[in-house]
């Protein structure tokens, strides 16, 4: 077993897109937050999602992750329909979303935060505890795995600290680490570096690129154009709930519609 064998995504060549969104609509009252959005994400890439405030980016992420049910359209992940699947099932299929504002489990330690997620635990149902194959040693496996993930993101020294005591940037890293515990194929990151100092930003993006090289796919919302243009291979622009443009960074930078609605002169 290799050093990073806990990441499941590698070892398989996927030619088509790993995620495909087709005509998704989500309305709140009369407001069309996502209004017939279509896009696709290719595997083993870092794909950026940009657009002005209120373009529906976060809503789209929530729809993909199953936290909101779409009003219309379909979502295909890894060759199978995703819409209509409960959020907790979606995670098991390998798609995990992090939150824009870190939502750490405040009164749990960093290690505990990670252990909540993986490995897909027996012993999480009363039935398993009483009759099923629950074994306390699986906790030890979870701890070892969590320690490897903490090593990857550079939070090892804060293992037993309460999550509430972490700084804003460290909380972002914790979000990423927690998502990695679920052995994802595709990670949706909602503004992963907003409010994070430049050093930590570089560290975090380094982690993301390292994981991409190992076979994970990232789809991220970001407002920092330096980050997006330098680190993303593919960019999707959303405007008023729809896809405005898709392409490589250079093409997006030159696209007049994008300049008009978002990038500015």
């Amino acid at each position: 077993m290799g050093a990073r064998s806990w990441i499941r995504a590698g070892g398989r060549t996927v030619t088509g897109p790993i995620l495909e969104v087709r005509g998704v609509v989500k309305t709140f009252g009369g407001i069309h937050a996502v209004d017939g959005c279509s896009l696709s994400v290719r595997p083993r890439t870092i794909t950026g999602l940009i657009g002005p405030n209120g373009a529906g980016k976060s809503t789209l992420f929530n729809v993909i992750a199953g936290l909101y049910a779409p009003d219309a359209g379909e979502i295909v992940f890894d060759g199978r329909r995703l819409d209509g699947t409960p959020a907790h099932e979606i995670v098991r299929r390998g798609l995990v979303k992090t939150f824009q504002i870190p939502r750490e489990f405040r009164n749990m330690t960093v290690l505990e935060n990670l252990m909540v997620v993986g490995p897909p635990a027996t012993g999480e149902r009363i039935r398993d505890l009483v009759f099923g194959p629950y074994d306390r040693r699986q906790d030890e496996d979870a701890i070892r795995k969590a320690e490897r993930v903490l090593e990857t993101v550079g939070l090892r020294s804060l293992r037993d600290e309460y999550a509430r005591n972490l700084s804003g940037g460290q909380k972002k890293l914790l979000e990423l680490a927690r998502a990695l515990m679920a052995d994802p194929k595709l990670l949706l990151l909602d503004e992963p570096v907003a409010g994070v100092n430049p050093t930590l930003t570089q560290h975090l993006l380094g982690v993301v690129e390292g994981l991409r090289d190992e076979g994970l796919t990232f789809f991220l919302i970001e407002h920092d154009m330096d980050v997006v243009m330098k680190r993303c291979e593919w960019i999707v622009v959303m405007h008023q709930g729809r896809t405005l443009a898709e392409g490589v960074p250079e093409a997006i930078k030159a696209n007049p519609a994008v300049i008009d609605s978002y990038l500015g002169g």
Partner: protein
Amino acid sequence: MVYEYVVLQLSTFVVPATLLAILALALNLQWGQTGLFNAGVAAFAGVGAYVFGMLVTGSFAIPDLYWSHWGPSEPWGIVAAAFGAMVFAGVLGAIIAVPTLRLRADYLAIATLALAEIVRLILKNERALTGGDQTLAFIPRPLDGLVPRGWAADGVFMLFAVGLMLGLLLLMEFLTRSPWGRALKAVREDEEAATALGKNAFILKIGAFSMGCAFMGMYGALLASFQGVIVPDQFAPFTTFIAYVVVILGGSGNPRGVILGAYVFSLFGWTTQQLRAYLPEGFALRIDFVNQIVIGVLLVVVILWRPDGIMPEPRFVPRTASAWRRLRLRPPPIPFQWFGLAVAWFAFSGVGATLLAVGIHSRAAFGTPALGTQVHPAVLGIAFVVALVAAVTALGFTLGHGWVRRIGPAVALVDVAVMLVLLLQPSDRTVSDFVLLRLFAALGVLYVFVRAGVLRVPVPWARARGSARGGGP
């Protein structure tokens, strides 16, 4: 006799405190662990008390069949009725939780608050079933008719209640450390984040809620059994309030803290009751009201200065070394640990039997067939001390593995329960019962060991889903 007085006085404090601790442990699973605001604790306690009372006194039965009237001296009938009360309360909890838990948290509070009043009013008005305000009376205690009412019965009930509380504590400690408990905690901290990380928050909440309700039902059954008489107004919203005070005072999320909270809280009430005789007349009459004021002030003080309670939820730090290694000692070989556990088992049952014999005073210790003989208190005292020393020494040998160590007291409690039944059986059934009950106890303990992964036995359920250990390299 001195110890008669001591047992009697002690049980007036220990029994109510222990029952309150059981109620608080149940609430702690819902509120402390999962963050579910159950405003209808009284309803589930009341339902438990009344279902138990009705089953056991026969009020519930069709008169010509009268199947549910087991009579006061059948311990298993009472256990079955208590189990029925738990199931009923648990199912009621699930029924109320399914529609409300999908909504925002506040709705659960509103629904349970309303439920509490509905239940109380039904109990008050369905007189044919519950007796209404005329009380439901003649609810037996376990082993009634074998132990004379009075100090002996109180002493036996005290042991019984404390045993149940410790059993529940062990269960809760196990559950809070299990992946299930961790997932509940995650739901408490942030439900949406937990869902986004693959937790089925709804199922988790239903499970925790109905399990808590079932144990509230158990509290109700115990209370009914202890009092012998219940009235609907006992289960007014004040019960719910008390349960919350205890959980917050003790330390929300920490089962041990919650028990401490219940004892501290009860000690306060008990002390003022004891002082009543020495207080000036006008003040003595108002002491109950003063109590309630002081409790309120106490709660405010705790929330201001110690918001996490007397004994806050412990920080999770995984243990990497066994107790022996932490003491820088080499653990004894496994067979010695098992031997130590066996000795602890029998020694503790000796402690239990001695205590029982003290309580009953008319039967010999250690299950010898000398039923009905008087035992000199000095003999019992020596037996008690010897057994206790043996128990503690033997437990020392079992420090090696977390579960061997933890299981010791549980084993002893099971055995005490067995001895309790044995000592009080008519003599002609003693031998067969002794063998059977010991066997059952041993099987139960073995089961716990296998489940906890201490014993490696190739049992079918361990292989049910391939490797149980997940995908660690």
